[in-house]
């Protein structure tokens, strides 16, 4: 399946009118990520299309931020649903979902984790610190954005413990 420019514009319009502030679509090799806030640098794979809602609506390739994006607003408080366990950031720093750009993320939604599984990295002054799950279970949601500042104690993932 191919996506035309009109398709992308249509998708953007739908997202704009919706309550969602983050949207990701994967069709085969093609991946579209749309966010209403800051651009979300996912990975440097050339097939990826990252479109910030505020920028030109035409699909462009690889508008991936090299430096960590700055987050001027504090993260919204996350309500932890009944029966779920958050994996919290052990320190303040820049959060990464994958060992390096272009590599698959450590964990994906619906994927299993063990207590000692590495689920992400936090970069503090060029030192990368592994984040462990601390719980056995299934990841149900990724709460933090790749390449963004996360605070100490900020929930990064939701896990349904097994």
């Amino acid at each position, binding site marked *: 399946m191919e996506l035309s420019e009109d398709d992308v514009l249509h998708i953007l319009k739908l997202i704009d009118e919706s309550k969602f502030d983050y949207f990701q679509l994967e069709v085969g090799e093609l991946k579209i990520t749309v966010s209403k806030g800051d651009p979300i640098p996912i990975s440097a794979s050339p097939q990826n299309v990252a479109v910030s809602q505020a920028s030109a609506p035409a699909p462009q390739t690889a508008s991936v931020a090299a430096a*960590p994006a*700055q*987050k*001027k*607003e*504090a993260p919204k408080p996350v309500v932890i649903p009944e029966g779920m366990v958050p994996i919290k950031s052990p*320190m*303040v*720093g*820049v959060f990464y979902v994958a060992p390096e750009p272009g590599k698959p993320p450590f964990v994906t939604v619906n994927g299993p984790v063990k207590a000692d599984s590495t689920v992400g990295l936090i*970069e*503090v*002054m060029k*030192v990368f610190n592994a984040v462990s799950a601390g719980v056995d279970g299934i990841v149900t949601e990724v709460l933090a954005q790749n390449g*963004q*500042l996360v*605070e*100490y*104690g*900020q929930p990064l993932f939701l896990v349904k413990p097994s």
Partner: protein
Amino acid sequence: MSVTRVLVANRGEIAVRIINACQSLGIETVAAVSEADRDSLAAQKANRAVCIGPPRSSDSYLKVGALIAAARGTGCDALHPGYGFLSERAELAEACAQHNIVFVGPSADNIAKMGDKLQARRIAQSSGVPIVPGSDRAKNAPEAAVLAKQIGYPILLKASAGGGGRGIKLVSNPSEMETTFSTAAAEARAAFGDDTLYMERYIGNARHIEVQVLGDHFGNVIHLGERDCSLQRRHQKIIEEAPAYALTQDVRAKICEAAATLARSIGYRNAGTIEFIYDNDSSEFFFLEMNTRIQVEHPVTEMITGVDLVAQQLLIARGQALPYKQTNLRLHGHAIECRINAESPQHGFRPCPGRISNWQPPSGDGVRLDSHCYTGYVVSPYYDSLLAKLIVHGDNRAQAIDRMKVALATFQVEGIDTGIPFLQTIIDNPDYRCGKINTRWLEKKLDEYSASYVA
């Protein structure tokens, strides 16, 4: 050098003070807070707060990496370290420089030079500023004993890496030297990772006098008069005043000039304080150390000069030239600051954390309060006990004392104990009112006060 968004790398009243100064200049702020300070007044007042770690300061406010990550991640182009914590660590100033963050303070080189107290002594001496008769490094107890004999007992053993009243031991006579030397060295090694010791003659009847200086990037250095901070408890200041009312005009002018000369000699920039000890008996003054940061007691200088020192720090950091010349600074009246701590004077001044159920600070002409407290605020056991700085200004010292008396009497704090009842006895004391005090005077009053409650 742009300063448009400042990471406030501190807590308590000084974090609020920095945020206020930033707001007055249209600068945005991000409060770096520990988990215990998420709901602090600074966190509420800043444009945003960022949680940098757990409550213990060694895991949060003392972590250079966490502060740099927080500053970069929140789009800050500057960082204000406040006082205490990392404010006098060259490491933080260096890390800021590496990450293109403007450090609101002196250069790393200024900090390192003055942080080594022995080196600071040498710098003072070479700029012609009198230093307390004493020694260079004493390598061991026998060498110290020889040096002490030349200086004359009693002497103080001081850690070169200390400062701010920490790492000081009194040696009254030769028989105490061996034990005290090894204890002092061990403590300095444990506290500062450096056991270098030096000696100074102990001046028993002394006043603590310090001079506020400001320097900019263009080599302009001015002084903003002096403060008398003689009322101390275990080397921690409790009541501070400006100007130094007990000194003659001539001595005041000489002390201030000495301070400016010293600051100029190291190309000092931003706000700093040069501390002196004044011998009441001989009327001599000697350099003690330099604090390369804003000080707790800076408001008394602000009250008599009309200069907003924290705003000046930000403007200097931004690269602006000092808007004042030495000759057009005028001092007006007298200012007194009382530090209001969470402590229980009736129980040997033990710290008193807890929830403040009622907080009604005084107000009125010439009254200023710098504080992070409010009704419902929980005083955390993790940090120092400073709740507020109560500052008054009057046309003269007598009026300032009268205003302080009324302000303390109308200050209502419930839920926790504070030092206010003790401070009231000091402000009312005839010896205090006529200025017959020295650096040991308050300790005696503390003992008398505590004894009256034990009896």
